[in-house]
């Protein structure tokens, strides 16, 4: 939802970044306010996933220019774990498996790391159990998931639901979904989208990164940005997604070429 004069959650200006000497982001500018859902679309290799990893602080990428302000703070100065505790959440495209660590222990450690950072008392096993039972319903997950090792042996859909469960527990200010729809069947897609919609509110913001328009049937964005060659080519409302779906990404490039 678009709210007048709401707080700016994320402000990105002329961001450039590289990996192993290859420039991936070439001057990206974007502003996201509380209450809004933004979608970034674009062809493979356009830099959308890189952008999400840079926001989360992935060590493999080097920021070479520009600025990223998150809730008034310079995000680029913070370590990945500090960004997370401040409220940046990345739902991974390929969540990793962590053998031997139970989902519950992981979720509680994560929840308490954030609570500690904000000066809140840590939750004991009993309080956490109550919290998690409530959150499980958002993603319609079976409680047996909790005792299994993190993501180990999970199907693609289960992994993605586990990501949304984590988002539900951590209540981030900015939820970034990196191609969360990839590899999901329609039922899992609906559950995941429904979870995101339930978690979206006037205090937080969502950034949905996707290759296909399909997800945006279920998570309706307030703004859509088309990314290509490491920058945002054009922005618009949800109708833009339909046009992209019908006409492909090349059309945007041609349109812009004509405009120049």
């Amino acid at each position, binding site marked *: 939802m678009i709210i007048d004069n709401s707080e700016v959650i994320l402000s990105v200006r002329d961001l450039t970044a590289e990996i192993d000497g290859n420039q991936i982001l070439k001057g990206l500018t974007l502003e996201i306010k509380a209450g809004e859902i933004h979608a970034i679309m674009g062809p493979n290799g356009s830099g959308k996933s890189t952008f999400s990893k840079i926001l989360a602080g992935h*060590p493999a990428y080097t920021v070479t220019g520009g600025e990223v302000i998150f809730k008034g703070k310079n995000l680029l100065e913070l370590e990945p774990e500090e960004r997370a505790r401040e409220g940046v*959440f990345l739902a*991974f495209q390929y969540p990793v498996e*962590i053998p*031997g660590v*139970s989902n519950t222990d992981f979720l509680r*450690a*994560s929840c308490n*790391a*954030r609570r500690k950072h904000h000066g809140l008392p840590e939750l004991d096993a009993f309080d956490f159990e109550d919290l998690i039972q409530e959150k499980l319903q958002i993603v319609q997950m079976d409680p047996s998931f909790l005792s299994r090792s993190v993501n180990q042996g999970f199907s693609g859909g289960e992994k993605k639901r586990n990501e949304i469960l984590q988002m539900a527990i951590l209540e981030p200010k900015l939820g970034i979904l990196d191609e969360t729809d990839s590899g999901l069947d329609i039922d899992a897609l609906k559950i995941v989208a429904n979870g995101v919609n339930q978690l979206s509110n006037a205090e937080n913001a969502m950034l949905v990164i996707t290759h296909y328009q399909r997800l945006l049937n279920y998570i309706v964005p307030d703004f859509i940005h088309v990314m290509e060659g490491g920058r945002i080519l054009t922005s618009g409302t949800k109708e833009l997604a339909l046009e992209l779906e019908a006409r492909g990404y090349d059309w945007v490039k041609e349109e812009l070429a004509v405009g120049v």
Partner: protein
Amino acid sequence: MSTTAKNLVNQPYKYGFVTQIESDTIPPGLSEDVVRLIWAKKNEPEFMLDFRLKAYRKWQAMTEPNWAAVKYPPIDYQKIICYSAPKQKKAKLNSLEEVDPTLLETFEKLGIPLSEQKRLSNVAVDAVFDSVSIATTFREKLAKEGVIFCSISEAVHEYPELVQKYLGSVVPTGDNFYAALNSAVFSDGSFVYIPKGVHCPMELSTYFRINNGESGQFERTLIIAEEGSYVSYLEGCTAPMFDTNQLHAAVVELVALDNAEIKYSTVQNWYAGDEKGKGGIYNFVTKRGLCQGVNSKISWTQVETGSAITWKYPSCVLIGDNSVGEFYSVALTNNAQQADTGTKMIHIGKNTRSTIISKGISAGRSENSYRGLVKIGPNAEGARNYSQCDSMLIGDNARANTFPYIQVQNPNGKVEHEASTSKIGEDQLFYLAQRGISAEDAVSMMISGFCKDVFSQLPMEFAVEADRLLSLKLEGSVG
């Protein structure tokens, strides 16, 4: 592995101090005269001289084994001091009050208080300093139950018939190079005897401390569990930091008779050398248990974190029908450490069962190998084994190997082997960091999870200690 958690400082080895104490030390070198000298110093009965000399002659004819996946410069056995004992004012100590206070302080500093007021309430401790046993706590209390817990030197004098019957019965004098060496020159160690039907009322524990920089430590442990008895025994070890390597060649023999159970746990934290691989203990140990009686059970649990080199295969020989052997192991190597460790499960009796759970963790540029033999003999009808060997790599320069040997001579035998290799990689650390979890916490969480099947086998007090120890050892290994 590069940037995630840079410059976490390596935790210094906090047991690395040297105790200044006057020692009764024999000159370096090994010969028949040295064997006789040790025998004479210990004032042992005649049968011990035979035992030692027989072993020495076998050792002379043997060569050092070279099949393990470890590398080290040749050891000059003529430079090793085979016997070093702190000087005591009296030859025979009657009570703890007569022990040199410096020694009591040393053990207290290591977290092993021996004095009446401070000692652990439910664990009896035998404290071994260089070549001799300093003190054994709770002896009187244990004696009431008929349990004998004393140093092996005392046992040689006080229970010669038991020693003569069982010493070398599980690990013969000529079993292997290091066992033969140990049999020739061993100086002390622990002796445990649990009489028929007795459930030992407390944990028994030996704490080994090497203090002398040039001395080898050759200790000998013998545990006998009579019919229907039970004992849980724990061994701990530390050593000062020296630039040179010290040799530790121990032999442990366990005998379980009908329906008896022995649980043997080790938390090994010998000095591992510095991060460049200078110094540290060479830990060449022979440990073997004999499940001689029907329905007997021997369970080895080891947490190996120290030593420059570990060469160690705690084994079970399952002779009694329905007897059970277990091996639970966590072996952690960091920096330049090398470990070649595992077990042997020899099934001889019918319906014998064995379980092997091995967890190897390699960090730094260390090398960690699991080597295990499961042998099912021709008469071992219905024998079963389950083995699980998991390796975890931290960083890009560590190595893990698994060498399973399986020999089945009975068509009804059943052997299962599972193995896995996982890695604590940049991806996992980033994933956990993205959830607000620091690199240190992330590693310790993953390691605890990886090891929990083994830690759950340790006595409670030591499980927590072991968990903490691993985290300390790994500090600085990510990043």
